[in-house]
Every structure is written in structure tokens, then in C-alpha cells.
């Protein structure tokens, strides 16, 4: 049995004028770490809120752990953990009090499931007497995760847990997720950061309520058609303008220290032609190499198709 199943799930807002989730169907297997990857407005939060029974769909069905999200909402609430994108703990309760509160609401105790949160909780334990509102961003995030886990959910929903979080804390957070996955918890996580996609078992690339592609990160990269090149020169901004004006260019965009380039008709002469063109434009220190596309390249390509 799948942990989560969606069948033509649809959600609109504003008297059906805004289509947030558009007939979405997909499945998440038990124990899977599944990523919803996409920008704001992709529908990630709406999906999470429907699956956690906080929002009713317009049409379509979905189930979590075999329970229907409309009919069996009480059963679902008992067995899922949900960490919303916006910090939603009690700001004027302490770390300890928040955790106790959530454990009690779910009819359990911190002691009973301590093993599950231990790794994470020991990092914030020195501050257990501090009010949640006075914690730093990274600490709040850890506490919120503990509170979402304390009743030992079978499915964990994490809505943009790393948005606005610096690169170091983001790495640490994903390390925590890996360890939770090993304990058999199914995890659905959403993120706007494309580089986090590769850390999931499977991902859905999303835009405006639709799925652009759904598969393992490796398979999505393999589906990328054509060659992708990385180009660099002494003057990067000028290079971007010049390459976009080059007649053979299909797409060209900035990508870290390189530009990523694709050709309309890629032939063995492409490289020589583009180099010739760039030299004539006065570029020096030109670097040109074929590269493996990343998930971000795939996403950009899917958006343009």
C-alpha cells in the first residue's frame, strides 16, 4: 500500500478563479523521501494542507495511509506530522512546554517517543527554558520538527522547511531527514531550492498547480535531451548578452560561475563557431565545455517547453 495517493486532486481559490492545484495524481510509497520542488505559487502548500485534512479539495480524491482525506480526517490527523512553512508553535511557551503540549494533545508523552527526536532535541535542549519566540531561525525549525514528530507519525509533511535558511543549516536539516527516513517514516517535503532535489528518493517538479515531471532525480536528469555546455569568459555579463544574440543559440542563462548554453542545431562545428563568434566580439579567456545538466537545468527547460 502507498503512504499517499492523489487522484485528480483539484483546489481553487477566490470563487474558482485561481487554480491552485490542477487535477493532480501521484503516489508516494511507504518509507519514501518525496520532494515537491517548485517556486511560490506551484501549489505545494495547498497540496500539503489538503493531505493533512486542513483544507477540502474542490474535486478529486486523496488518501494518506489508506485513509480518505475527507471522510477519515480524524484518523489521518492522528497519524501525520505537519510542519507548516510559517512558524506555528506557541511563541510564549518555552521549548519544553511546546513539546509537552504537542505530545499531550496527541495522547502521548515526550518520554515515550524520545528516541525518535533525540538527535534533534539534544541540539536545542540547552535552551529548553527559553520561549519559542526568542529562538533563532534554525532553532525554531528544529523545535518545530520535534513537535511534528513527537507522536511518532507514519507520514511527515514538511512545507518549505529550509526556505530562508542559510546553506550550512540547510545541509544539517537534510542530514536530519536522512536519519528520520532510516527509521521508516514516509516524508513529503517541499522546497524552492533545486539543489535539494537530489537528496530525495523521488521528486515532482511543479509549476502553477501542475507537475512538469515526476521521477527519481537521476531519471529526470537522464531525460534531458540534447547537449548542455558551460561557457565562461573574462566578461560574464557581456558574454550573456553576446551568446543570447548568437544565431545558433537555443537558450543561454547564468549558472554559477558559468553560463549554460544549448544550441538549436548542435553539430561538431558548434563549438568552433561559437568560439570564433566570441573572439570576434572581443572576449578573452574563453572556456567551453560539455556538462551534465542539473535538476535546475531540467526545470528551466521544462518551464520553457
Amino acid at each position, binding site marked *: 500500500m502507498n503512504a499517499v495517493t492523489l487522484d485528480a486532486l483539484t483546489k481553487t481559490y477566490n470563487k474558482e478563479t485561481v487554480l491552485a492545484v490542477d487535477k493532480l495524481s501521484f503516489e508516494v510509497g511507504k518509507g519514501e523521501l518525496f520532494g515537491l520542488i517548485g517556486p511560490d505559487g506551484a501549489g505545494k502548500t495547498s497540496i500539503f494542507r489538503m493531505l493533512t485534512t486542513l483544507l477540502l479539495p474542490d474535486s478529486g480524491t486523496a488518501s494518506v495511509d489508506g485513509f480518505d482525506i475527507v471522510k477519515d480526517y480524524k484518523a489521518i490527523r492522528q497519524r501525520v506530522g505537519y510542519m507548516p512553512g510559517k512558524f506555528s508553535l506557541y511563541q510564549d511557551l518555552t521549548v519544553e512546554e511546546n513539546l509537552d503540549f504537542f505530545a499531550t494533545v496527541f495522547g502521548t508523552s515526550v518520554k515515550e517517543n524520545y528516541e525518535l527526536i533525540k538527535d534533534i532535541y539534544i541540539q536545542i535542549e540547552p535552551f529548553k527554558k527559553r520561549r519559542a519566540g526568542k529562538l533563532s*531561525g*534554525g532553532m525554531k525549525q528544529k523545535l518545530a520538527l520535534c513537535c511534528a514528530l513527537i507522536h511518532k507519525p507514519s507520514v511527515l509533511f514538511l512545507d518549505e522547511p529550509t*526556505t530562508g535558511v542559510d546553506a*550550512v*543549516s*540547510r545541509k544539517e536539516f537534510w542530514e536530519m531527514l536522512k536519519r528520520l527516513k532510516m527509521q521508516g517514516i514516509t516524508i513529503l517535503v517541499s522546497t*524552492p531550492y533545486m539543489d535539494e532535489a537530489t537528496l530525495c528518493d523521488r521528486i515532482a517538479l511543479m509549476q502553477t498547480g501542475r507537475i512538469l515531471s515526476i521521477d527519481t532525480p537521476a531519471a529526470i536528469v537522464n531525460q534531458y535531451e540534447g547537449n548542455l555546455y558551460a561557457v565562461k569568459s573574462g566578461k560574464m*555579463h557581456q558574454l550573456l548578452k553576446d551568446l543570447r544574440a548568437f544565431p545558433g543559440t537555443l537558450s543561454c542563462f547564468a549558472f554559477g*560561475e558559468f553560463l549554460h548554453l544549448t544550441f538549436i542545431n548542435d553539430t561538431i562545428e558548434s563549438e568552433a563557431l561559437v568560439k570564433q563568434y566570441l573572439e570576434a566580439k572581443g572576449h578573452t579567456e574563453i572556456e567551453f565545455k560539455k556538462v551534465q545538466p542539473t535538476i535546475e537545468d531540467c526545470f*528551466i527547460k521544462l518551464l520553457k517547453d
Partner: protein
Amino acid sequence: MNEPVIKTEKLTKRYGDFIAANELSFEVYPGEIFGFLGANGAGKTTAMRMLCGLSAPTSGKATVAGFDIYTQTEEIKKNIGYMSQKFSLYEDLTVMENIKFYAGIYGLSDKMIKDKSEQLVEQLGLKNEAKKLVSELPLGWKQKLSFSVSVVHKPRIVFLDEPTGGVDPVTRRQFWDLIYDAADQGITVFVTTHYMDEAEYCNRISIMVDGKIEALDTPLNLKKKYGADSMDDVFYELARGAKRKAD
């Protein structure tokens, strides 16, 4: 070399025993895109607020656009633009009204306001949306509009605080096109971001750790110095030693 548009010397801000910004000394030059990086809690916002004339330093010196950050804060505010991660646009005003409002605040003449707002709407491709409320715009458009109004008065420097959070990769790159255009016009860009690929788009970068500037150089030199392949690795190397994040 050109006169710096930002110059700080041992700029410090204390809150009680806590040193939020600790003896920051650096210079930023006209037309430069300067990346201001650091982990959450490293002191970036504190430093930015001082440079914008919104918060008085505890000690040290600094000038922004040639004006002193202790005594000439009003002059500074007229010569800078600021865009924060929380939107500074009025959601219940239209696109056009927002542009006109900001242009008016910055003292542009009626004729300038008219020309500028038409030009901006055209340039951003928002002609059909000009009369729509900002609240109806997608996030990416809001960010582009927010940036455009922050430079509507052609400031010497524009401060961007995590301007690209949450948008798709194509929109994020379009946003950087706007940044480059502004820099080409001679506007200095001072930007914070959590996207390390964006750090590569900056001319120079500083990385703050626990209130201090631990590194400041071009992306290329920083990678060489730390023997790293990417800015991601450089950042990780420097910021993982931070003590404050646990606070």
C-alpha cells in the same frame, strides 16, 4: 581608483553584551555588485540597517554615498534604494500607483514621474497589469517591480535583502538581469542571498561569521584561497565554524 561609495572603518554595533557587528572595515566601489553573505544571525541585517541610516552604530566610522552614517542619515536615505525580503509595495494599490507613490516620495517632478512610470511599466512588460492591484501579481513580478521602484530615483546604491527568495529559476535569473542593468548604469548593488550560485554573479563578496567579516574578495580568489570548487564549499568551510547559529 574611484572613490568608494561605501566606506566603513571598524563599524560596530552592540546590543548590551552582544556584539552584532564587530569592527567591520570594507569599501564598495561605484557600479560594483557586492555580495554580502553570512549565515542566519551572522549580523548582516544589523550591518545593512546601519549603512541605510536606520540604526546608529555603537562605534567606528562609515560613509555611504559620501555621507556620514551618524550625522547625515537623511542625506543617505535620499541617495540609496532599499528592497527587503518583506515587500515594501502596497498590496492594495495598483502597479502604476505604487510606482507613482515611490517616485513621489523620492521627490521626482510630476513630469518625471509620468515619464518614468510609463517607461518602467513598458520595460517590465507589465502594460496589461498596470491597473491591477499588486496583490494580484505573482511573486516574481512583485519582486521585479519592488526592485524597479527601489531604483526609480536613480540612487547611488541599492541595498537588496534576499531579493530572490521563493521564485522559479527562470524568474530568479530575470531578476539578476535587472541587477546587471542597474550596475551598468552605475548604480552600486549591495545584495544578500542564500543562493550560492548567485554569489558567483557578484564582483566581490564578503562573508560574515559571528559578527565579523571573515573573508572578502572576488568569487574566483575566494575559491582559490579555500581550495574549493564552488562558492557553496567556500561558504560551508567558513560558516560551519560559526558559534552563534546555536544561539
